[in-house]
C-alpha cells in the first residue's frame, strides 16, 4: 500500500505548485521562481528515488475506481520512468531558462502556472496505467499547452493556437472514440507488457479500426505525416515553450502513446502478426524523409528545427514498428536522446533570437565569434542529430539500423541513410556559416543581457548543460544508469529475453 | 396513442426550431419544446426529470435565451442576399447519414440487451438514508457525479462572470406597486415550496435540483420588482452571496472527506448517519443551485449593472 502513494506524489509535485503560482502576484518574481525551482527539484528527486526503487524491484501502482470497469490507474514502470526522468530533468532546465527569458514580459504567473500544469499532464501521460487514464491526461495536456502556445497574444499566435486546438481537439475525440470502441470490445484493463489483445477473439477488422483511430489520435501530437501541420505553425510560441513542446511534452506524449499502444495494448508480436506495425512503419519512414526534406528549404531557424522534429520524432515510431528488440531499443532511447538534443537546439536558437535578434538561417553568419558558448552547444546538438559518434544521436541511430537489419527491412536502412544525409545537409552548412562565415556589420537587434557572459546567465547555462548531456549520454551509453542500459533492461523484460 | 401524438409534436417542434430563421420564433418554439419534453418524461415514469426540465430546461433556459437575444445584433441568421443558397454540402450529409445509421444500429442493439441497475439500487436503498431511489443515487451511490456537476455549474458561472461587459443600453425594468406587493406576498410561498420540495426529495420525486430552480425564480422575481435581493452593494450580502456560490461544492466535498476518516471511503457515509448528511448537502446544494442559476440569468439581462453581483 505504501508504494501506491508515490505516483500521486509525482503528479502533485508539479500540479500543486502550478495551481499556487496562478495566484502569486505578477511582481513577486523571487517567490514565484523559488517555488517553481523548488517544485522542479522535488519532482526530480522523487523521480530519481522511484527509478532506484524500480531498479530494486519495487512496483508502484495507484488506482481509484470511478465506476465498475473503469478505473483511474497510475503506475511507474520502466517505460514510464524513462519519460518521467526526461520530463523532470528538462522541466528544471527549461524553468531556469524561462525565468531568464521572460524577465520583463507580462503574464508570467499565468505562464509558469500553465507550464507546471503542462509538466504534470506529461507525468500523467507517462504514468497512465490504462487507456482511459491515458486519454484523460492526453486531453489535459492539450488544454494546458494551448495557453502557452498563444502566450504572446498576437494575432499570429492566436491563429497558431486555433490551428493547434483544431488539430489536437479533433484528434483527441478520435482517440476517445478508439478507446471507447476498444472498451466495448474487451474492456479497459491495465497496460501489460506483451499486450492484452491477443487471444481475445476480437475480429481483425475491429483491431485494425481501433488501431487506426488510436493512431490518428496519437499521430497528431507525434506529428506523423499527414497530421503534422500544426507543429511548424506552433513555432510562434516563446522559445522555452517550443523547447518543451518539441523535446518533452506534446510531441513526445504522442510518440510515447504509440509505444504504449504497440507494446502494452496490442503487444509487439500480435501487432506484427495482424500487420498494423507495417502501417506504422511506412508512415514513420515517410514522415522521416518528408520532415528532413522540408527542413532543408526552411529559411527560418525555428521552422527548420520544427521540421527536423517532425522527422526525428518518427524515429521512435519507426523503432517500435520494426517489431524487434534492437529496433525497440533504438526507438526508446531516441525518446530521451532526441529530447535532450532538440532542447539544446531550441534553447540555443532562443538565445540567438533574444540576444542578437537572429531569426533567419541567413542571419547566423559569424555568430560563433559573437556567442561562442551558445554556438558550441548548438553544434553539439546538431551533430548529435546527424548521428556523429560518440554523441547521443549516434547510439539511437545505431540501434535503429541494427533493428532494421534484424527485421530484414533493407529499405528502412535506406531511409535511415537518406535521412542522415538530409540531416547533414540542413545542419552542416548552418554550422559552417555560424563558425566561419563573416559576421555582419551590425546584428539585427543586439541587447546586452550580461556583463560577464555572452548572454544572460540563465539563458546560457541550460543549453550548455543539455549539450553536455548529449555528449555524456553518447559516451557512457553502456552504463546501467544511462539510457541504453536502462532501455536494454526494459526491452529484455518486454521480449522475455 | 397519446405517446404517438406527443412524440410527433415534439419532433415537429424540434424541426421547426432548427429550421426557422427567426431567432425569436426559434426560442419560443424551444421553450414549448421543453414543456412537451417534460410531459414526455412523466410518461416515461421520470417525474424528477420532468420537474427539473420544466423548471430549468424550459423556464430558466427560456429566460436566458430571451434576455440574451435582446443584446445580439439583429438577425444574422439569414444569409446575406446574393449568397449561394445551396444546402449542406455532400460531406455533411454523408456524416449525418453515417451517424444516423450508427445510432440506429446502436439503439437497436441496446433494445435487445436489458441491463437494469435497479436491483442493485433497491438492494442498498435501506442503507442509503433516503427512500426515494433517484435521490439515493444522486446523493449517495453516485454522489461524486453530483458533486462534480455542482462544480461544473460553479465553473460555468465563474466563466460567465469573467465574460461580462457592462451593456450600453438602459432598459428600465418593470416597476409598480402591484408587482412589488405581489412579489412580497408570493415570496414566502415560494420559499415554502422550495423547502417542501427539498424535504420531500428523501421519499418522493423532488430534491435539491427542483428546489434550487424554485429558489432561483424567487430571486429573479425579487430582482424584477427591484426589491433588495441579490445586491452586492450591501456589505453583508456580498459575503453571503459568495458563500452561497461556493457552498454547495464545499459542503459536498467536506462531507465527502469526512467519509474517508470514518472509513466509508471518499464520498461515502456510514448508513446510520446518511440521512442527516444527505439533508445537509441537499440544503447547501439547493441554495447554491438557486443562487448560481439566478446569477446566470441576472447577468444575461440587458440592463444588468456591474457590481450588483
Amino acid at each position: 500500500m505504501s508504494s501506491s502513494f508515490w505516483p500521486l506524489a509525482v503528479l502533485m509535485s508539479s500540479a500543486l505548485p502550478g495551481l499556487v503560482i496562478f495566484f502569486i502576484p505578477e511582481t513577486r518574481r523571487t517567490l514565484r521562481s523559488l517555488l517553481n525551482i523548488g517544485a522542479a527539484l522535488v519532482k526530480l528527486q522523487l523521480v530519481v528515488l522511484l527509478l532506484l526503487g524500480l531498479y530494486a524491484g519495487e512496483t508502484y501502482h495507484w488506482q481509484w475506481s470511478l465506476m465498475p470497469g473503469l478505473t483511474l490507474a497510475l503506475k511507474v514502470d520502466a517505460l514510464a520512468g524513462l519519460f518521467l526522468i526526461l520530463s523532470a530533468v528538462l522541466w528544471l532546465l527549461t524553468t531556469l531558462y524561462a525565468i531568464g527569458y521572460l524577465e520583463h514580459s507580462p503574464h508570467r504567473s499565468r505562464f509558469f502556472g500553465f507550464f507546471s500544469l503542462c509538466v504534470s499532464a506529461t507525468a500523467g501521460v507517462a504514468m497512465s496505467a490504462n487507456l482511459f487514464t491515458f486519454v484523460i491526461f492526453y486531453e489535459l495536456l492539450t488544454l494546458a499547452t494551448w495557453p502557452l502556445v498563444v502566450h504572446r497574444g498576437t494575432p499570429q499566435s492566436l491563429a497558431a493556437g486555433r490551428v493547434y486546438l483544431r488539430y489536437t481537439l479533433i484528434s483527441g475525440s478520435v482517440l476517445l472514440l478508439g478507446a471507447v470502441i476498444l472498451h466495448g470490445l474487451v474492456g479497459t484493463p491495465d497496460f501489460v507488457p506483451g499486450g492484452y489483445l491477443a487471444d481475445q477473439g476480437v475480429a481483425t477488422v475491429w483491431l485494425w479500426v481501433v488501431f487506426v483511430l488510436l493512431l490518428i489520435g496519437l499521430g497528431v501530437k507525434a506529428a506523423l505525416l499527414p497530421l503534422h501541420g500544426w507543429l511548424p505553425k506552433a513555432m510562434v510560441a516563446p522559445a522555452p515553450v517550443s523547447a518543451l513542446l518539441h523535446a518533452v511534452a506534446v510531441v513526445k506524449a504522442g510518440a510515447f502513446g504509440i509505444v504504449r499502444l504497440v507494446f502494452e495494448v496490442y503487444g509487439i508480436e500480435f501487432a506484427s502478426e495482424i500487420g498494423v506495425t507495417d502501417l506504422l512503419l511506412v508512415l514513420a519512414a515517410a514522415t522521416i524523409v518528408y520532415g528532413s526534406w522540408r527542413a532543408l528549404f526552411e529559411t527560418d531557424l525555428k521552422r527548420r528545427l520544427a521540421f527536423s522534429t517532425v522527422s526525428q520524432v518518427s524515429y521512435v515510431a519507426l523503432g517500435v514498428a520494426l517489431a524487434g528488440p534492437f529496433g525497440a531499443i533504438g526507438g526508446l532511447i531516441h525518446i530521451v536522446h532526441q529530447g535532450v538534443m532538440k532542447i539544446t537546439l531550441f534553447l540555443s536558437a532562443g538565445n540567438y533570437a533574444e540576444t542578437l535578434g537572429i531569426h533567419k538561417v541567413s542571419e547566423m553568419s559569424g555568430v560563433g565569434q559573437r556567442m561562442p558558448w551558445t554556438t558550441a552547444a548548438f553544434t553539439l546538438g546538431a551533430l548529435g542529430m546527424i548521428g556523429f559518434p560518440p554523441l547521443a544521436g549516434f547510439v539511437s541511430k545505431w540501434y535503429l539500423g541494427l533493428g532494421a537489419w534484424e527485421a530484414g527491412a533493407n529499405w528502412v536502412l535506406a531511409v535511415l541513410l537518406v535521412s542522415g544525409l538530409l540531416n547533414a545537409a540542413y545542419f552542416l552548412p548552418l554550422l559552417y556559416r555560424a563558425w566561419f562565415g563573416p559576421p555582419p556589420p551590425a546584428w539585427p537587434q543586439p541587447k546586452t543581457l550580461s556583463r560577464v557572459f555572452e548572454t544572460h546567465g540563465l539563458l546560457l547555462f541550460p543549453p550548455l548543460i543539455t549539450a553536455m548531456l548529449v555528449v555524456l549520454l553518447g559516451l557512457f551509453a553502456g552504463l546501467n544508469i544511462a539510457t541504453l542500459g536502462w532501455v536494454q533492461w526494459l526491452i529484455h523484460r518486454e521480449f522475455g529475453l | 396513442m397519446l405517446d404517438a401524438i406527443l412524440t410527433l409534436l415534439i419532433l415537429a417542434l424540434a424541426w421547426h426550431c432548427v429550421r426557422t430563421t427567426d431567432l425569436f420564433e426559434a426560442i419560443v418554439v424551444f421553450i414549448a419544446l421543453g414543456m412537451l419534453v417534460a410531459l414526455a418524461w412523466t410518461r416515461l415514469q421520470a417525474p424528477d426529470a420532468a420537474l427539473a426540465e420544466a423548471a430549468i430546461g424550459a423556464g430558466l433556459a427560456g429566460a436566458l435565451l430571451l434576455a440574451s437575444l435582446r443584446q445580439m445584433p439583429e438577425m444574422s441568421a439569414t444569409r446575406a442576399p446574393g449568397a449561394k443558397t445551396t444546402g449542406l454540402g455532400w460531406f455533411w450529409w454523408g456524416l449525418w447519414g453515417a451517424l444516423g445509421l450508427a445510432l440506429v444500429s446502436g439503439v437497436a442493439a441496446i433494445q435487445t440487451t436489458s441491463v437494469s441497475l435497479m436491483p442493485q439500487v433497491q438492494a442498498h436503498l435501506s442503507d442509503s438514508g433516503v427512500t426515494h431511489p433517484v435521490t439515493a443515487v444522486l446523493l449517495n451511490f453516485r454522489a461524486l457525479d453530483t458533486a462534480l456537476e455542482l462544480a461544473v455549474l460553479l465553473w460555468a458561472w465563474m466563466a460567465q462572470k469573467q465574460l461580462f461587459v457592462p451593456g450600453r443600453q438602459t432598459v428600465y425594468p418593470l416597476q409598480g406597486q402591484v408587482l412589488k406587493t405581489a412579489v412580497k406576498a408570493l415570496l414566502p410561498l415560494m420559499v415554502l415550496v422550495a423547502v417542501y420540495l427539498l424535504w420531500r426529495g428523501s421519499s418522493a420525486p423532488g430534491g435539491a435540483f427542483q428546489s434550487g430552480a424554485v429558489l432561483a425564480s424567487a430571486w429573479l422575481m425579487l430582482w424584477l420588482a427591484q426589491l433588495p435581493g441579490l445586491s452586492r452593494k450591501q456589505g453583508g450580502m456580498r459575503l453571503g452571496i459568495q458563500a452561497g456560490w461556493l457552498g454547495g461544492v464545499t459542503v459536498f466535498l467536506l462531507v465527502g472527506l469526512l467519509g474517508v476518516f470514518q472509513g466509508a471511503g471518499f464520498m461515502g457515509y456510514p448508513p446510520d448517519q446518511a440521512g442527516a448528511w444527505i439533508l445537509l448537502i441537499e440544503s447547501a446544494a439547493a441554495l447554491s443551485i438557486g443562487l448560481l442559476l439566478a446569477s446566470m440569468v441576472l447577468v444575461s439581462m440587458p440592463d444588468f449593472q456591474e457590481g450588483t453581483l
Partner: protein
Amino acid sequence: MSGLIYSLCALGLVMIGLYGLARAHHGLQQLLAINVMSAGVFMLLLTMAARHPPADAVPQALVLTGIVVAISALALGLALLRRLAAEEAESHD
C-alpha cells in the same frame, strides 16, 4: 410499444439537432440545436430506464445531472455570444 416510439423520437431529436447544428448561421441557432440534441440523449436514457417497472433510477439521476450541466453550458454559450456581440458593436464604433 411506447418504448419503441420514444426511442425513435430520441433518435429523431438527435438527428434534427445535428442537422440544425450543421446549417446554423447564428451562434444562438447552434446552441438551440445542441440543446435539441441533448433532449434526444436524455430521452433515450429515460426510455432505456423505463423498460422494466420500476423505472431504473440510475439513468434518471444521470438525466437530472445532465439537465443542470446542459443549462450551465447554455448559459456559458450565451455569455460568450453576448460578449462577442458587445465586442463587435465596439469595433463598429
